[in-house]
Structures are given as C-alpha cells and as structure tokens.
C-alpha cells in the first residue's frame, strides 16, 4: 500500500530542498560581488577542478569520438553519405554530447569532491573555526569553488570536444583515408556561431549547477562522518539530475531563438 502521507512528505521535502538550493544560489551571487575577493583560493580551486578532471574528460571525449564514428559509419555508408560524417559528428559533439558528458564527469568527480571536502570541514568544525577567525567561510569556500566550476567547465568542454573530434578524425583517416585538413575544414564549415554560443552558455550553467550543489550539500552537512558520505553522494545525484533539466531547458530556449 502506498501511504499518501508519505508521498506528501516527500513532495514537501523536495520543494523545501529546491527552495533551500535557490536561496543558497542567490546568496552565492550576492556574496560573489561583494569585496574582498579571495583570489588565491579561487586560482587554487581552478587548478584543482582542472587537474582532477582533465584526464578523465580527455580520455572519455576521445573514446566517445572514436566509438560514435565507428558505429555511425556503416549506416552513413549505406546511404552513400559518409562524407557528411565530419559535419554530423561536429554538430553532435559540440552542441550536445560534449557539454553533457563533460558535465556529468565533473559532477561525479568535482561535485562529489566538493561535497565531501566541505562536509568534512563542517563536521570537524573547520568552517566554524574560519568564521571565528574573521574570514567569511561562505566567501572563502563556497564562492571560490562555485566560480572555479563556472570558469573551468567551458574550458574542459572545449578540451573534451577537441579530443572527441580528433578521435572521430582518426577513424575517418584510417577507414576512409580522409586528411586532417579536409576533416576539420568540414567540421568548421558545419559549425556556426549559433552552435558554439549556446553550448558555451550552457556549459557555464552546468558549472554553476555542479559547484552550487556540491557546496550546498557539503556546507550544510550534518550527522558526523556518515553525513559526509551522504553529502558527497547526494551532490552527484542532484547535480546530474539538474544537468539534464538544465540541458532540456537550454535546448528549448535555443530552439525558440532559432525560430526567430
């Protein structure tokens, strides 16, 4: 039997969570524009975000490019449209696969990392210690991390895209004897500003979502060490879900602009 009260409680707590997350996000924007700015820690975090996920994003991108091309090749051959490969792969990667896959990897790698780090700082009173020593922990920990995610994600997406395209080119080169020049000429012919801009804007928002969710889960962590695990875990789940919702919204918005 499904308990109605139980469902109601879940719905309530879902909306409570959404509300709390929105308040946290608006606090982030308020504090981000108020001096002093923690430059050193910001650069530090940019380095961490890049360092922690670069290899993973690179390898995954490369393999996705390879596999994607190998699998779509027979179908395109059948229709005699294999020369469309570079533009097709280029569009798919840049518009959709690159940003989403990179963001998912970062949610798993960075979102959980931030959740666990801030969570353990919360339960061991390190955040309280910052507060009493005159440093605003929200600015020092949250603002820097979220900003680092926002700035680094588009960069990582770019690198992921590039490696995916390179992987795709390798397949085409080996199987269809296409030259590097020809392949990438076709890719860039197919891509327009209208493809690059939305996916870059989208990547900024993905970065924001990953950073905010990770920080929110960690910053309000409770229940000791168990809570730290929960914070890291739910950070990944919530961030991933949010990424798909944002992606859907981005596609709808882009679509409206195309129609104009």
């Amino acid at each position, binding site marked *: 039997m499904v308990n109605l009260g139980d469902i109601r409680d879940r719905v309530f707590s879902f909306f409570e969570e959404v509300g709390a997350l929105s308040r946290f996000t608006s606090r982030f924007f308020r504090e981000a524009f108020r001096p002093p700015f923690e430059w050193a820690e910001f650069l530090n975090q940019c380095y961490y975000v890049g360092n922690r996920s670069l290899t993973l994003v690179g390898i995954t991108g490369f393999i996705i490019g390879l596999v994607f091309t190998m699998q779509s090749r027979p179908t395109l051959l059948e229709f005699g449209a294999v020369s469309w490969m570079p533009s097709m792969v280029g569009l798919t990667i840049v518009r959709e696969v690159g940003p989403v896959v990179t963001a998912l990897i970062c949610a798993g790698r960075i979102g959980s990392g931030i959740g666990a*780090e801030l969570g353990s700082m919360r339960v*061991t009173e390190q955040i*309280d*210690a910052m*507060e009493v020593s*005159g440093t605003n922990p929200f600015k020092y920990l949250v603002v820097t991390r979220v900003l680092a995610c926002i700035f680094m994600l588009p960069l990582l997406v770019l690198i992921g895209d590039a490696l995916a395209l390179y992987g795709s080119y390798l397949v085409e080169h080996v199987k269809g004897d296409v030259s590097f020049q020809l392949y990438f000429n076709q890719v860039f012919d197919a891509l327009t500003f209208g493809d690059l801009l939305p996916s870059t804007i989208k990547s900024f928002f993905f970065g924001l979502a990953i950073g905010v969710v990770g920080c929110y889960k960690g910053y309000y962590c409770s229940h000791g060490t168990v809570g730290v695990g929960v914070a890291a875990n739910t950070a990944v789940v919530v961030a991933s879900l949010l990424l798909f919702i944002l992606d859907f919204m981005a596609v709808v918005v882009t679509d409206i602009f195309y129609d104009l």
Partner: protein
Amino acid sequence: MKAAQTSRKTSSSGPDGRSRVLEIRDLKKQFGENKVLNGFNMDLFQGENLVVMGRSGSGKSVMIKCVVGLMQPDSGSIKILGKELTHLDRPELDTLRTEIGFLFQGSALYDSMTVRENLEFPLRRHADKVGNRDTESLIIEALESVKLAHTLDLMPAELSGGMQRRVALARALILKPKIILYDEPTSGLDPITAKEIIKLMQDIQDEYQTSSLIITHDVDCARVISNRMILLVDGVNYAEGTFAELSTSQDQKVRAFFK
C-alpha cells in the same frame, strides 16, 4: 537549588573585585522541542580560570558557541568586554572576535593547509591588531609557546592528536586574545597528553594573563586548572564555587559529578 543561591552572592562581588570580561544573563536556546539552555547565567572575571562542567549533551558547546556568535541564542544577553553581542554588526563582531581565542573540541585544524598556513589564517584579516608585526615571527612565537616550532611545514594529518591540539591552541593564541574559550581541551586524548595540555594552558595563562573559560566533563582537568567552577545542569547554572567547595557538596546532583 541551595547551591545556586549561595553562588550568586560570590559572583556579584567578584574575586578580588576584578572586572568582568564576560557576562551571560538568562541565556535560552532550544532546538525544536529540545530545551538545551534554560536561563543560564555566568560571569568570567579578568585573569581567572573558570570551568563550566556538565554532562555530555548538556549544552556546553551550545553555550560557548553562543558566546562567539556561531549560534544565535533565543533570548538572554551576552556581554563581552562590555559590549552586548546581539547589538553588534558583522565587522564589529569580527573585531570583537579577535579578543577571543577559541579552542575547538576536535582541534578543527584546516586539514588542507600546513601548520604554518593554519596559524596564518587568523592573521589574514587582522594583522593590524598585532601591530603590523612580521607574520613569520608571530607564527614562530605562537608555536614556541606550545613547544612545536619544528612542525611548521607539516600537515595536520602528520601530527598526533595531542600535537594537533597544541597547534590548535597556538592558532587560538596568535592574535593575543584577552579571553580564551576551551571546548573540552582534553577530550579524545590519553591521560598523559591531557596533562601536557593542561600544563600548557596554565603556562599560557601565566604568560599572557588571559581570562579562560574552560568547558569540560573531565574532573581531573577541572581540579587542576579551575579557580572557580560552575555546574551546568538542566540548562541552568546549577551550582557554583571552588573545586573544593563543590566536591564536598551534599547536593545529590552536584555529588554525581565527583563520583
């Protein structure tokens, strides 16, 4: 309740007529239905070591966190060095906090930073307070007062629990506060290390002439360090007096502490 009444008299005059550095009146704090503090009163006088003793979960940490503004009390007044805490804005509160050293229950060292960076952290915003002195010499001085100058470039994880507590103590001291709050300074340490920490607390008291509020449920610690004690029971200052007075009290609830 008799114990509490006799104590009121002593605290209103104050030992040797010394000035109050911290004054808590009728402090109340509850979490949902859980009434933790229920009208707690306390005075801390210049230069004394006051021990507040209470069972685990009796609200000692909640009380001390209200004092540094990490928690907002539901009602009551907290006066630190003559300033009413609830009337302060953020910058004023931060300035006042430089006069208060806080030793956290689990040391709370920043585990992603070296010992040096841990000690630098309070100086980031308040270097002016110690007269623009060279940061490095301040850090060394603070570390030397806890006898750990050689750990400067180690990470907290490379230190033993006792050493971590001492580094945390150095960090609490670095801005030369007038008041030091200790949240269970000996918890989680073996008896010998605990004795070392207590000895250090006494040395620091002699050297810097601070006023200390020590929260503990460790009777040995209380006996050695306290000039005066308050027992926190059921959210109020249940009894007050010297260690000798309280440990020979006839009151049931007081005696339970010294068994």
